[in-house]
């Protein structure tokens, strides 16, 4: 997707809505979902350290974009799961996965000249699913729209919670 802020807004919205249903899903856990939305873009480390440079140093083919796939996301989520305590593991697994999955799916809707997105299910398959091309990676309106939805969701949930109590 466009930018990380939109991804963070999407994860925030999803987790805030789920918190209506699951009492344990407090604000700290919403943050975990948001952190999950950052996972695929760890591939952006290539802006600092180019994959070709790592490849040349190790004499191996190397492409950071492998992190921006199902396989890379699952392994990265598990690192987060190992980092927390036993009590939090299931919840952190669920929320990091939700955040990372929302990011991969939102990116699969990006506009591409060929009409095909990217191999998000790798290593299961290198298949590039067709993309509806809803937005460009640099469209500013996506952050505004997802931000408005996030803010509206937050207000609605707060308002209903205060009405319930």
């Amino acid at each position: 997707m466009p930018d990380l802020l939109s991804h963070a807004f999407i994860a925030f919205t999803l987790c805030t809505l789920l918190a209506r249903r699951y009492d344990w899903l407090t604000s700290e856990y919403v943050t975990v979902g948001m952190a999950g939305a950052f996972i695929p873009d760890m591939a952006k480390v290539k802006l600092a350290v180019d994959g070709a440079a790592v490849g040349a140093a190790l004499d191996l083919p190397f492409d950071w974009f492998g992190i921006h796939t199902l396989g890379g996301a699952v392994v990265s989520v598990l690192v987060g799961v190992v980092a927390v305590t036993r009590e939090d593991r299931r919840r952190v697994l669920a929320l990091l996965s939700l955040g990372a999955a929302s990011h991969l799916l939102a990116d699969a809707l990006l506009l591409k000249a060929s009409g095909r997105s990217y191999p998000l299910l790798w290593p299961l398959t290198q298949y590039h699913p067709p993309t509806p091309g809803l937005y460009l990676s640099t469209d500013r309106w996506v952050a505004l729209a997802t931000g408005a939805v996030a803010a509206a969701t937050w207000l609605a949930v707060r308002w209903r919670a205060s009405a319930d109590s």
Partner: protein
Amino acid sequence: MLHSWTGRTAGVAVLLAVLFALVVGFGSLGPAPELGAYPDGEALAQAYDAHVGDDIQVTGTVVRTDPVAVAVEYDYYADGDRHTGVLELTVTAVSTAVTEGESLQVYGTLRPDRTVVAANTVAVPAANFASMYVVSALAGLWTLARLVCGWRIDWRRGALCRRDDPLTPGRAALTAAREVLD
């Protein structure tokens, strides 16, 4: 299992090894047009003639507009060497207006003499990339601040734990500074 410093460190080490194998495996993928993985700038830089007549997709900076030409940067490692450079391609049959400096994604058929017959193009104004990075950095700060407020590091167990008493942003900055100093 995986509840002590040693267990956690071992677990993370194993996972990082798997992640490393994944990025190496992904790096070894070649074009697969039947799966939608069309040859890109790097594939063309490696073996231009082998892809003549193929459908390709490249992204480059517009360097001329009449006729349209894009400069496609490539940077890859193959056969024991790192290859870095710019491949200039003339793009014909561009149906939308483009301006110099824009980033242009081109899908089309590769012809000899560094030419692509475009089937579809997508242009991105250069200025939009800068604002995207700024906005992304804001998201990072927002999430990091929330993490510091809601979570702390238990140094004894080497784990991330929820704070029993979540911080407010102001207190969080103070506490973070104090934890680093300790």
